[in-house]
């Protein structure tokens, strides 16, 4: 029996710039169903953090309830974590972020956790442009409670139970775009070549980065007739192009023919490059993104890739003009600067 992962790793396992191997970014062995798409997403997060040379103790993982929300246990075992209440991850993330802006916030949620019970919280965290990665592991069902249709389940999609879904689906990318999210992407758990650079871009983006990842539930929603099965997604997937993430420190060496690729520079100087399949697509154009989503949906396609990115985004701390330092580092002197300062303030009102 092996509920335990062996300690041994590949003898030539790569070491990143801060001296860590991927092992330093792993969590405990997953207890999800074998083959669950969520596990691949965990592996992608591990890979992205490893490649970005992130110090694990600088990360806070936040989640709600669901199989997807369980996954923070299975990656970044050396990071902070808070497994909150169903649908309430956004408010916990907001509080944490407000208190300590120096951390990297990774929120993991499910389609049930976000599009049903957590819809209200989701809407507000998007419009506040909280600086975080918000990743939905979207399987079109409530996996943890045995596969009931979720609000992202497509119209007439058939789950394992065999009944076609009578309702229209909520498109979380569409909603995020409408509510003003400053980075929006969609991907597929089975496509790490796309997912890893998207996660890296999201982690470097200042503001609310939303990634909706199609993540098949092998146990309850991987059957014929389901639009969230591995096979269906693979057959209907359409992509805006290949996403490359070039960290700030690296020189850009490859060049594509003009028009076919577009480079977006992030706050920290890193570059997200979109090698486009559709030359007319502009990832800075929110409306075009919404149109493209609609168009693909009408054609029965699953659109993936970087949909929208605002490199000039102003995240919540900037919008509110909060202190530059984490609250815990503020001393009594910082908080009660004394009579002289008070007098100065009063004088400024005269």
């Amino acid at each position, binding site marked *: 029996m092996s509920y335990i992962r062996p300690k041994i790793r590949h003898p030539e*396992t790569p070491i990143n710039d801060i001296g860590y191997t991927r092992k330093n970014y792993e969590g405990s062995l*997953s207890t999800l169903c074998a083959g669950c*798409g969520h596990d*691949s997403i965990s592996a992608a997060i591990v890979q992205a953090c490893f490649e970005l040379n992130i110090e694990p103790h600088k990360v806070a993982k936040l989640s709600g309830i669901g199989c997807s929300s369980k996954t923070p246990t299975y990656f970044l075992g050396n990071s902070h974590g808070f497994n909150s209440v169903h649908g309430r991850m956004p408010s916990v993330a907001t509080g944490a972020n407000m208190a300590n802006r120096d951390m990297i916030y990774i929120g993991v949620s499910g389609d049930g956790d976000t599009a049903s019970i957590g819809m209200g919280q989701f809407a507000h965290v998007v419009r506040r442009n909280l600086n975080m990665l918000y990743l939905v592991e979207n399987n079109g069902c409530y996996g943890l409670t045995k596969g009931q249709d979720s609000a992202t389940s497509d119209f007439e999609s058939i789950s394992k139970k065999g009944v076609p879904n009578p309702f229209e689906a909520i498109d979380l990318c569409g909603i995020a775009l409408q509510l003003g999210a400053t980075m929006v992407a969609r991907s597929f758990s089975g496509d790490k070549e796309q997912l890893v650079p998207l996660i890296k871009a999201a982690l470097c983006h200042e503001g609310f980065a939303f990634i909706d990842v199609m993540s098949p539930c092998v146990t309850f929603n991987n059957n014929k007739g389901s639009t969230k099965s591995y096979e269906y997604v*693979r057959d209907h997937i359409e992509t805006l192009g290949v996403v490359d993430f070039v960290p700030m420190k690296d020189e850009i060496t490859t060049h594509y023919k003009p028009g076919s690729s577009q480079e977006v520079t992030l706050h920290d100087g890193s570059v997200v490059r979109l090698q486009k399949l559709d030359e007319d697509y502009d990832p800075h154009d929110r409306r075009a993104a919404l149109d493209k989503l609609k168009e693909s949906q009408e054609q029965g396609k699953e659109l993936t890739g970087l949909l929208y990115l605002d490199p000039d985004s102003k995240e919540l701390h900037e919008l509110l003009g909060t202190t530059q330092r984490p609250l815990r580092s503020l001393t009594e002197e910082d908080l009660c600067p004394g009579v002289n300062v008070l007098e100065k303030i009063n004088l400024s009102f005269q």
Partner: protein
Amino acid sequence: MSGNRINTAIKKNLVVSDWSSTDIANPEYFHKVVDCQYACPAHTPVPEYIRLIASRRYTEAYMVNWESNVFPGVLGRTCDRPCEPACRRGRVDEEPVAICRLKRVAADNRGDITDLLPEIPKNKNGKKIALVGAGPASLTVARDLMPLGYQIDLYDENALAGGFMRSQIPSFRLPEQVLDDEIGYILSMGVDTHFKTRVNSMTELMSKNYDAIFVGTGAPRGKDLANLSGRKEADANIHIGIDWLGSVAFEHITSIGKRVVVLGGGNTAMDCCRTARRLGGEDVKVIVRSPFSEMKASPWEKEDAIHEDIPILDNHVPKAFIHENGRLTGVEFEKVKAVYAEDGSRKLIPLDEKPVLIPCDDVLMAIGQENAFPWIEKDIGIDFDQWEVPLIDELSFQSSLPNIFFGGDAAFGPKNIITAVAHGHQAAISIDAFCKGKDIHDRPAPLTNLISQKMGVHEWAYHSEVSDDDRFLVAQADKNNTLVDRKLEVELGFDEQQAFAEAQRCLNCDIQTVFEEVKCIECDACADVCPTDCITFTEPETEETLRTHLRAPATNQEQALYISQVLPTSRVLVKDEDVCLHCGLCAERCPTAAWDMQKFLYNVCKAGQINLLDPLTRNRRN
């Protein structure tokens, strides 16, 4: 389309024709994955017996060994262990599994095996075979042919069987009782022994109308330094190592001078120096031409010698034996240093220093051995090369005279016991085929078997958890006792607890990861969970290109890539066998059981095969 398929689309004109998926039906594919077994000349099913030891089924573990290597008790103490440097554990951990010493555990703790030995037919098959020399090679031929009804005459000039195992390997490494027991199993099959009988003429032997003759006479001639000054004058105190060890073993020699110089850097030198320490040598030195790191002796043999207060002086070339009044007083050496040419070849360049005189009472020369066949007439049709090495067919061990076969050290020069055993098995197959009028080049296929180990969702029929322990050391008897008793065994062997813990370090490399393309839904679960990054889904490419395109580059060319057939996304699954821990996690995380862990048994076919692969037979036997 997935990212991979996009890439494929971008490189639209790519033609990939120069690749092929792995043929796992070829028994050699999985055999090679079992590194230790593959490296063992007799291909002993190592992990199979290690698991039996872990479950305290020592007798069965012994029989698995006995079937393959004939002398488990002997080899568990003395084997050259080519399996250990090959062991996968050594590639992912500091040190390999202590395979050899686990074998000894099986031998030490076995029950009575007489009922498990093959039956010997009372009615013989009418064929008569002569075996010349009673070393491990001949004894193996006897063991394989006796159950088939052959009548066998075994000749040796010594009073007892065993060859070099008895005359050369000192009792403090290999107790006589261990040897007697294992030789006894074979001789009591009814072999007709002719001891104290040196065969002096092949022509005469052939005139006795044997159906086949097997030559297992070893490489009995120790090299000399005949041209060194003083060699003749000081002869009384200069001994050829292997002759001297033989005389000690048969108790013709019982003492040696206090100061002894041993010349040579191989295992024979190590046995000579350690034996000299037990026969009265107080100041014993090993002096070798080459640098210490390049000595031929196994590292553990050197360690044992040093532990017995025997210094090893390297880079010293002997120049003269110094003598006074007809008595040896010392050896003179020239100091050298090793210089390497670009092609790696070595030259020993003399240093411009004064010669070094090492005073001593006796010298033991352990500088190599060679074949010698003074008793084989040169005109009877057995061809030799210019160095007096017979020309032998490497597959069948047949000489240029069709009814005469060679094996062991006699065939291709000095090797070791396990190689002699492996030769013996192959020669026995040839002799059997030859006597039955069959084509001896038509070799029987190995017996193989592949069985799923799945018991439940997270349950396998083997212990899949990987132990984190470091290699366990074998305890030794107190030096104060061993140095005064030539026959007292130095190594104590593992106790049961240590044996269990050491056995758990084995990675069960024979439990193969078997992949079934049609079941795979390409969910990536196996690739994600694999602790050593063995698995990659990627576009088909030539093996050479694939090796650089995997999650972790597959730089060990000795190890195969397991390449699947094309999957629905037009990718292939590639598994680098190199550092797979056989932990079974890939199979546990696979939702469709496309991966399965299956036990692969590979048994080299023997003449007179006893089918130890058949679990039913095995259970009945116990």
